């Protein structure tokens, strides 16, 4: 079937029951999206489907026809990083980095739906993504900062 990933149509020959995470990592060699639990708990595999944060480890590709999938590889606008990516660099958030694609995709989808979140909103939105390295303190700071830059960009454009 045909999948639209980061704006590009890709034909995959996998059965429709195959999970998006496996299609990405194994069939398309897009390893930026990570495996953590395979059960929808940890958030490491989060991608966006039509802008909504989605756990690719429990999403069969049969549900994705006509949908637009964005992965960490496609989040930046060419060389220009997404504000969330930039904020994660600025606050030096990642440690091992394994959870970070999922954190960043979750944050990006969240900020697209809530442009001026409170601290509690951020806590709520980011609390279903595990980080074993314990980068939570900086994730809070970075997501709040990304919200501010996104808001500033809005005003400018």
């Amino acid at each position, binding site marked *: 079937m045909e999948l639209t990933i980061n704006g590009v149509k890709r034909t995959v020959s996998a059965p429709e029951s195959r999970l998006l995470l496996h299609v990405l990592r194994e069939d398309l060699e897009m390893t930026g999206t*990570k495996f953590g639990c395979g059960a929808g708990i940890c958030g490491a595999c989060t991608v966006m489907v039509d802008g909504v944060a989605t756990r690719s480890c429990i999403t069969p590709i049969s549900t994705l026809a006509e949908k637009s999938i964005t992965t960490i*590889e496609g989040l930046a606008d060419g060389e220009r990083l997404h504000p969330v990516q930039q904020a994660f660099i600025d606050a*030096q958030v990642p440690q091992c980095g*394994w959870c970070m694609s999922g954190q960043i995709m979750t944050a990006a989808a969240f900020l697209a739906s809530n442009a001026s979140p409170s601290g509690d909103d951020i806590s709520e939105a980011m609390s279903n993504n595990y980080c074993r390295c314990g980068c939570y303190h900086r994730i809070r700071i970075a997501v709040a900062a990304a919200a501010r830059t996104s808001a500033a960009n809005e005003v400018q454009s």
Partner: protein
Amino acid sequence: MSKSNTENTKRWRITRRGFLIGAGAAAGSVALGVAFGLPVLRIKVAGMLENATIPSNAPKEPSAWFEILADSRIRLFVTKAEMGQGVHTALAQFAAEELEIGLADLEVTQASTEQGFRDSTGTSGSGSVSGMSEPLRQAAATLREMLKAQAATQLNQPVASLVVFGRGIQVKNDGGRRVEFAALAATQRQWMQQVPKESVALKKPSEFKIIGAPVSRIDIPDKVTGRAIYGYDARAEGMLYGTVLRPPTLGATLKSVDSAEAEKISGVVRIVRDGEFVGAVARTRAAAQTAVSTMQAQWNESKPLQQADIDALVTVGPDAGAQIQRIGDAAAVLDAQTNGSITAEYRTPMAIQTPMEPQAALADVRADKATIWASTQSPDLVRRRVADAIGFKPEQVEVITTYLGGGFGRKSDTEAAAEAALLSKAAGAPVHVGWTRSEELRYGYVRPPTHHVLRARLDADGRIAAFEHRQASGDVLFALLPKVATTIAGGILGADFGATRGAMLRYDVPNVSTIAWRRSLPVRTGPWRGLGALPNAFALESFIDELATTAGADPLTFRLRHLPDNDWGRRMTAVLRAAAEASNWGSAPPSGRARGIACATDVDTVVAQVAEVSVDAQGKIRVHHVTAAMDCGLVVNPDGARAQVEGNVMWGVGSTLIEEAHIENGRFAAANFDGYPLLTLKDAPIVNAILVKSDDKIRGAGEPAIAPVAAAIGNAVFALTGKRLRNLPFTPERVLAA
């Protein structure tokens, strides 16, 4: 491997096992002095191990470390694995500092076991940065002088007139007379062998420009774009996926297996059986997993192990333990009159490292050479494990370390590598093995449970007159050592030096006794972030708080009063005061909250923390703030060190409030994160990490901050509720029951 590398390997080869045996040899000679029996020796060796990071065996010759690239950048080969602790950046800072080049002019490359030198220490014990400081800086300074000497010849100028500038060498203030590094590269293989006789003087800390500067971590950009490659991401042409059949219960052995159905699964390429080892190789991981779950296996199982069996094994006494610290005669003082002495028992459970990236390795086994890409903290160990598994010599195995999606001690061993190698050899194709979360939670090794019995007596002035810590633990580091070393080291130490990390009392008390029991358990135990640091500090620093309460003293004042008049004492005073001041210790906390304080020493680093907590009606503890002051001497990358403190605090909060691994009917109960939940952002405290610098020595920063967390939280809960929690984790049920 080049000649010089072989020589390096010989000269600098001090394996961890060699180190232990070395300790044994020294011990033997001391023991001949008659006056010292084994117990005294044990105390000495244990003290030495507690204070020292494992010495680095790194060569000082530049050729093992550097390569000059065509664009005049210098490539630095590092043997240490980047697992989020920022070690690649810190090592780059060392090299750039002494080379006198910018960080951007340096390319950091992970050395495989065939490049660079043999680093048998691996990446563990918070020792990578401190242990590499001298040898790497020495190598870099030497290379700088060698580059200058080469340039002097080419430019026909005296060496003394030359400086490093940009990516080349020139006459000071004269860009016209200049040579780029690239122009010296063609002959590097030759001239890098001619190491100058005298060692080049290293810069003084006061001259540092890059070491100590808050630089951005070099690995971060690739980690926000998905470009960083980890062991789980390793890919090769024609690669297949492998899954291994696991026993249903711990210790079960395979009787028989019928894989006829498994072979029919679409995508399955081969079923592999090699003695007890059974696995499936397929075109997708899902197919390999389905194949394995379809196999009909019969197992020899003994009576299934239960949690209570383990709990019963981990107890101090009544047999004799190993005395690892003795000052005065604590037992005599404590036994003299039992009234007035205070006793308490503490316990910590098994816990699982469970890094977010599970075990993973890719193996490409050819006729006489195996190449392994692995997420591992110990490439040298992986090399031996793989060689053993497939009947190769270690020299035939090259291990390439990838980025690690977390290590925390779990990747000190990397079982997936040998599994992938066995499957690759059988399938005749590269095979990737990546564990599931269930495998990660059930088939690894865990933090051993501990039991602590503490006794102390206060004198009339409220000072501690005698203090006794008796501790029992499963093995931590011995679990990874070859049997022979375990026997020798066990004979000398009596206790596992990983398990006793942080077990000794640092306070100034006239009578102190610390005794440790090594308990061998029917489950695999092994290293975990900080090893024994958190369990031991939990027991010690909670008990110190109990003594402060009995003495009617403020917990901070009580600690300060007992600090020794030496370097330790001064450094601990500084971090305690820094943490207290930044957390407003002494002022009233917001209503409904209370603060607790604790401190600890670990790998020569000292750390103090204040936790501010509240407890809700359901008994759920909320940790609002943790203020952590750490003195690890000269900090290479301050922002990176603070990140390590923050991460350790989070890890510590999770261990204190949530984490506990259970055995149920012969296996670890949790099959995924729903059964073994981790701390999430909602419950994460705000962390204020403060770096205190007492001197210019570089010390470990990757683990020490985990040590005091549980005690600081427990002490805060006591201050708030008057309930003393002595068993980890502090679940709501335990809080309500206390």
